[in-house]
């Protein structure tokens, strides 16, 4: 069955799928071996680098392990790692709180600012592509590089932002070196980096709204405000849902920007400073794993965060989809 000509036209399913009845007795549909060959590189790599490691993470999370001793000699500790994280590990609780603050503020600001930016770009405008490119530049720049640039800009002594504040006769701020302001700085760096991405998504959504709706609204005498609330926003609902869900998933895993903007500052070597005010879960996990070699705790932490992300995503999907 390698030649399509031998099949009767009326038995030919779309594609090269169902073979004529005569060959059904055989074990495999025609060309199935080719298909297996084609999927095998990707599937093997997925099994080896994603699915397998996921199961291994589950396994390690109920053991004590320092990465060096042989896997067969890992000490089984049951749920001790989870118990420790949830009841005894003050830094984990603190990191979780910071991660939530980062996520809620970051997602909130991105969702609103992104929409405002897209509404601006969706009007009659000169050089729209230029503006869009501008919004997008930070998104393709390495988070590490951006973290470094902002760390310099926000430096309390020689940072440009304080110079600008001085020009406005405002007092200089400590920014990243103050436990009270550091997390807000991290959030604004992250917003700076990703808001352009959401502008582009919103823009695609806005341009997908048929012009007729607006014409009809205009005929009915709706003003801009009404048009926005009655037409634009409801029709953007799927886009809004996508943005909130994906942005939350990403924000809960924040690492690079914190690492770049806070390690090495004022002698902090493990990041998350000053005074742990910007410690986030993935950074705490990283430190546990690769600074203290507590793999059990680190994997348990990874899985807890994974479950948290999963549950939050489900809740968001439920809440936001309900009314459509």
């Amino acid at each position, binding site marked *: 069955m390698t030649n*399509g000509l031998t099949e009767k036209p009326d038995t030919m399913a*779309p*594609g*090269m799928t169902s073979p004529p009845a005569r060959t059904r007795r055989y074990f*495999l*549909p025609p060309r*199935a071996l*080719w*298909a*297996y060959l*084609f*999927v095998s*590189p*990707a*599937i093997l*790599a*997925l*099994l080896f*680098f*994603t699915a397998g*490691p*996921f199961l291994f*993470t589950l396994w390690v999370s109920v053991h004590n392990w320092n*990465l060096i001793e042989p896997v067969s000699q890992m000490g089984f500790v049951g749920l001790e790692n989870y118990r420790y994280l949830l009841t005894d590990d003050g830094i984990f609780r603190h990191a979780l709180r910071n991660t939530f603050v980062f996520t809620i503020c970051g997602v909130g600001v991105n969702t609103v600012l992104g929409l405002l*930016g897209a509404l*601006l770009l969706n009007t*009659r405008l000169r050089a729209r592509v230029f*503006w869009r*490119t501008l919004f997008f*530049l930070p998104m*393709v*720049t*390495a988070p*590490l*590089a*951006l973290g*470094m*640039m*902002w760390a*310099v*800009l926000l430096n309390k*002594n*020689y940072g*440009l932002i304080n110079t600008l504040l*001085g020009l406005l006769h405002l007092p200089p701020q400590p920014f990243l070196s103050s436990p009270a302001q550091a997390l807000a700085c991290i959030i604004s760096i992250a917003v700076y980096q990703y808001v352009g991405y959401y502008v*582009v998504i919103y823009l*695609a*959504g806005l341009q997908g709204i048929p012009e007729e709706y607006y014409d009809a609204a205009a005929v009915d005498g709706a003003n801009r405000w009404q048009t926005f609330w009655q037409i634009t926003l409801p029709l953007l609902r799927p*886009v809004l849902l996508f*943005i909130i869900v994906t942005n939350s998933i990403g924000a809960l*895993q924040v690492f*690079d920007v914190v*690492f*770049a903007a806070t390690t*090495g500052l004022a002698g902090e070597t493990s990041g998350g400073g000053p005074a742990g005010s910007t410690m986030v879960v993935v950074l705490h996990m990283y430190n546990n*794993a690769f600074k203290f070699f507590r793999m059990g705790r680190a994997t348990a932490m*990874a899985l807890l*965060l*994974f479950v948290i992300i*999963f549950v939050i995503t489900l809740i968001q999907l439920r809440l936001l989809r309900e009314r459509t």
Partner: protein
Amino acid sequence: MAKPQWTVPAIVGSILKYLALILAGAWMLLPFFWMFSASLMTSQEITRLPPPLLPTQPQWLNYVDVARVVPLGRAYFNSMLVTTLSVLGILFTSSLCGFAFAKYNFPGRNALFMLTLASMMIPFFVTLIPVFYIVKQLGWLNNYAGLVMPGIVSAYGIFLMRQFMLDIPDEFIDAARIDGAGEFRIYWQIILPLSGPALATLGSFNFVGSWNAFLWPLLVVQSRELFTVPLALNSLRTYGMEAKFLNLQMAGTAVSVIPALAVFVALQRYFVQGIALTGLKG
């Protein structure tokens, strides 16, 4: 859209609109401006309080000096090699697998597709430690294989390619088969050329992601000879903690961000397409 009306509210609205855009644009450009400006200052200028906005005399030699502090040339070569291999790997495995998912019928197809979708939901940090262990056991720490191999597959890429290829008419494939083309040749000569936009989207995203990757190379690489650009930047960062070296640090940063920016400006259309695609289908 309504025709422009030169009434007072319309003009005021227009001015406010451009004012908002200019402010937003300035915000976006500020770090880049400062990076570039600071990279051309002398050590005296950059440590002055408050620092000047622009260097009095651009110090282009900073860009030469920075290469003496960290092996930037070597890091560039490493990043190019690793990024190219990862991107080609992802394009190959994703398109081949997506092709099979989209155009073949075989037992276990749905199960394997579900596996792919499930893998898409597992964030990288969850598998970080086991993947590190696997790479270590394979002896791939501190070599190119360790940098490239774990990123050779993308569940999202498979999904994207499958979705795109579902829309390619089966008639193309049937016709090729009648002409006696083999299965791999159909993939290589019919399907791949028709999948250009999806490949460009996937490729450009992964180029940027791989070029900017930091956490994984930080774990895998130990020797300076294998530094990728972000790692070189990271060692500049600890070096630049002394304020007088900030100019060199910013010069290094400027050099490091250029390739990803260039790829983006060149392939902007595919970025936007890809984002719109994921955004609207998701």
